[in-house]
Every structure is written in C-alpha cells, then in structure tokens.
C-alpha cells in the first residue's frame, strides 16, 4: 500500500467533504430550525443547476453573472415555497411534510426531464476546474476542490454569524426553540420560517453552482445529493452547522479511502457504511445541539 496515495486520498476526501457540506448546510438549517426533512432538497439543487445551465448555455451569460442572477431568485423561491406551501403542512405531523416534499421532488424531476431531456450536463468553469497546484510527484490539489472547500467554510461561518449575531438569527433560533411561545409573544413564525427557507435557497444556489462545474448532473441526480447531505447532517448532529462540515468531511474521506483500498466500485458504499457505523455508536451525531 502506498502511503503517499493514501495521504492523497485523505486530502482529496477532505476537500470533497467541503462539497458535501455545501449541500448539507441548507438541509442542516431546514432540519435544525424548521424540524423537517426536505426530501426535495437535492432536487432543488439540481433545479438551480438547470437554471444556471439555461442562463449560460442558452443566454450566454457568464457563469459568475448567472450565479449572481440566480442568488436572489433562489432566496425568493425558498421564501415563497415555505410561505405558501410548506407552511400549510408544518406542525400537522411528520408524514404530511414528508409527502409534500416528496411530491415536490417528483414534480421537479419530471419538469426537468420534460424540459431538458434526460441528458447528462455539466457547466464549464473555463479551465478552472482542471487547473491544480502540484504538491509532490503525482499529487496535486485542484483549484476547484480547494475553492469549494473554502466556500463551504465561508458559507458555514456566514450562516453561523447570521444565526448567532443578528436579530433575524435570534428570531430564527427562537421559533426553532419553541414555535408556540414565539407566536404567543408576538413573533410571526410563518414569516421567520420563510426567511430561513430563503437562506436555505441561497445555500442551494451556491451548492448548485459549484456542483454543476465539479460533476455531471441530470434531472434525476437530486436524490443522491440528498442522501449524502442528509448523512452529513446526521453525523454532525442535528442543528450544528460546523458539525455538518465535519460530517461532510468524514463521508468524503470514507468514500475516497474506500475507493483506494477496496476498489472504485466501493466508493459510495464505503461512505454509507462509515455513516452507519458512526450512527450506530453515536446516533445523536458528533456535535448535537438538540
């Protein structure tokens, strides 16, 4: 076994973990704050990927400008989705919200298949995605994975500051603590939930942008994204954003080490098995907040 190759896989795995943490950060907020699992989270990421694809491929908008256009759209989309649809089933039991978001997942997948076909797509990062910094012979760190990791750390830092130092953050934590009391003392919980979902929308847009340059996507890529994100959230501990980053890193490292040691067909399964093993030992996650 070549130790250098293993070190390389660990390094790449940590960076891949940043990507998983990016998708998981939004899910972490919806699970931690609104206390529901959005089954459509992965599909919403893919939906924004197709929005970016449309803007860049059909309207020839540069990628960064396309992201800048999509950010407010994603915030508004999250806000409206929560305010006018999800809010109606919130607090009516766990099953209703799961069914509604499952429905959204199916609608999004079929809408994308109908509109764009089943082809696999990828966005061009104009060479950025293949550039890398050489470290030693044969090992290098790609600009894109490094940027993704840095973006994940920055995004989680920003979300943490938003939740813990701003007024709207205090309101979000208050409804998360006790929504009935929040309503009783005059907070408007539907509005606060909608803002929180708007913030989730922003994380969805950022993950979609990086994801679509980093890997291929097609209309049915969503559920895979959801599964990895959900594992990262659960491993980290519900409601802990930094825990979500650690959870993402563990899964990323497990996948790439599994692929290195057992063969590439083991990559996905290795991630799931490590998740299950840690989950059995520590079902509350590594840094539980609740």
């Amino acid at each position, binding site marked *: 076994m070549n130790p250098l190759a293993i070190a390389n896989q660990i390094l790449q795995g940590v960076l891949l973990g940043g990507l998983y943490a990016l998708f998981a950060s939004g899910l972490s907020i919806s699970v931690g704050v609104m206390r529901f699992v959005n089954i459509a989270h992965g599909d919403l990421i893919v939906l924004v990927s197709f929005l970016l694809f449309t803007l860049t491929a059909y309207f020839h908008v540069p990628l960064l400008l396309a992201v800048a256009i999509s950010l407010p759209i994603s915030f508004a989309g999250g806000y409206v989705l929560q305010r006018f649809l999800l809010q109606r089933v919130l607090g009516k039991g766990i099953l209703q919200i799961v069914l509604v978001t499952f429905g959204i997942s199916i609608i999004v997948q079929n809408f994308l298949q109908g509109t764009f076909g089943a082809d696999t797509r990828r966005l061009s990062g104009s060479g950025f995605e293949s550039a890398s910094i050489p470290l030693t012979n044969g090992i290098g760190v790609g600009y894109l994975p490094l940027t993704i990791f840095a973006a994940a750390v920055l995004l989680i830092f920003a979300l943490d500051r938003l939740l813990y130092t701003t*007024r709207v953050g*205090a*309101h979000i*934590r*208050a409804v998360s*603590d*006790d929504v009935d*009391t*929040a*309503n*009783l*003392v*005059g*907070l*408007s919980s539907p509005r606060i939930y909608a803002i929180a979902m708007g913030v989730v929308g922003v994380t969805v847009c950022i993950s979609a942008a990086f994801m679509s340059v980093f890997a291929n996507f097609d209309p049915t890529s969503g559920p895979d994204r959801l599964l990895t994100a959900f594992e990262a959230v659960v491993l980290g501990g519900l409601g802990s954003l930094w825990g979500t980053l650690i959870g993402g890193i563990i899964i990323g490292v497990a996948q790439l080490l599994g692929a290195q040691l057992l063969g590439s067909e083991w990559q996905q399964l290795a991630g799931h098995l490590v998740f299950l093993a840690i989950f059995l030992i520590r079902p509350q996650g590594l840094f539980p*907040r609740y």
Partner: protein
Amino acid sequence: MPEALLTVDALTVVYDQFRATHDIDLAVDAGEIVSVIGANGAGKSSLLKAIVGNARLASGSICFEGSDLAGKTTAQIVKAGIALVPEGRRLFPSLTVEENLQIGSSVGRPGEITLATIYEYFPALADKRRQLARELSGGQQQMVALGRALLTNPRLLLCDEISLGLAPVIVNSLYEIIPALARRGIGVLVVEQDITRSLAVADRFYCLLEGKVTLTGRPAEVSRETVMRHYFGL
C-alpha cells in the same frame, strides 16, 4: 366615563366542544391593576389567550383602545400594545437572557422602556445577560419573561400566574414592580390562583368559576368570606 383601555364583552371561548369561558364581561383602564382569580380550569388562561388572539372566539368581542381585535394576529395585537407574560415563563431556552429580552423590543413598539429599564427593575439579570435562559433559576426566568413583555412597551400587560412555583421572596420582588408599571399608565391584568397576593395588589377584581364571572368588585369592599364562596362556588 372615558372609554376603557380594554373592554371584553360577552366573551365565549370553546375548545373541542368544551366551553372554557362563558359570556365574560371585563374592562381594564389605563393605569389600573385588575386581578382575575379562579381555581384551575376556571377559564383564566383562556381569557388571556383570547385577548392576545391565540384562541378562537365562539362569540363576544374584545376591544382595545376603541378598536375591535377580531381577526388580528398575535403579532399585530402585540404591536398594538398588548403583551402577555405566559404561564410557565416560556423563555427561549437556547437564547441568552439579553436575546430573550430583545425579542420583546423587536416585536413591540418603541417607547420609554429599554433594556436599561429592565436591568434597573431586576439588577440580578444585568450580570447574567450573556447566560442562556435555561441556566437561570425559576425566579430569574420569570423576571426575563416579565422583562420580555415589558420591552414591547405595552399599554396593557397580561400576567398569567407569575407567582407559580416561586419562593415568596421572589414573588414579592415581582409584585413590587406591578404598581410601578401602573404608575407609568400601563393597565395590568393579573391572573392568579393565589387569592391573597392577587387581591392585595389589585384595584378591582373578577372571580371566575367554570368560565363565568361570579363576583366582581374592589378588594377592600368585599369580605374574604364572600370571595371564597364565589371562588369555590359554594
């Protein structure tokens, strides 16, 4: 006589076919302390919940400063100047003391009551402003709950069982604040099971039994025996 700050007229609240209050008439003036006494299940909390828009009215009306509160959300009612100190304190446990208090300022109205006012009323809280609410003693939590309501700068303050489960010395310090609030012109509606405490502070009182007002008057003008008879329905 000028119009009362709060007028409750023939209020009936029904939950799942259970009639929690039945034709209650009640009024609170600005700067007046009104107490509502009654045993468990007499309809006291339902009355308060109805006033802040948290219970559906089966019939009757609630007017605040001359306007009907029907159809208003709790958020709108708080903005209009009614604040509730809910039963059981109900702080946000993972927020700090100061964050809990600031929830009040952000949902309420601007006015003369600020964080500094609260820390003046309850100096014990000033040192604990960065602590999480769940780490406080029951008495301190009740101070935060009262402070959170006061920071909305209410015209009318509703206190639901603020003495429940607290040591008498703490209850005294909480009840000392109430006359000071009334002197600021705030109307205070105090709901209590503790009759002695409640009647000592009140200008007027209402006694509820099984959702109905059975007796009303000024504490000084009604004998203890009469109050007890109506309280227990003997």
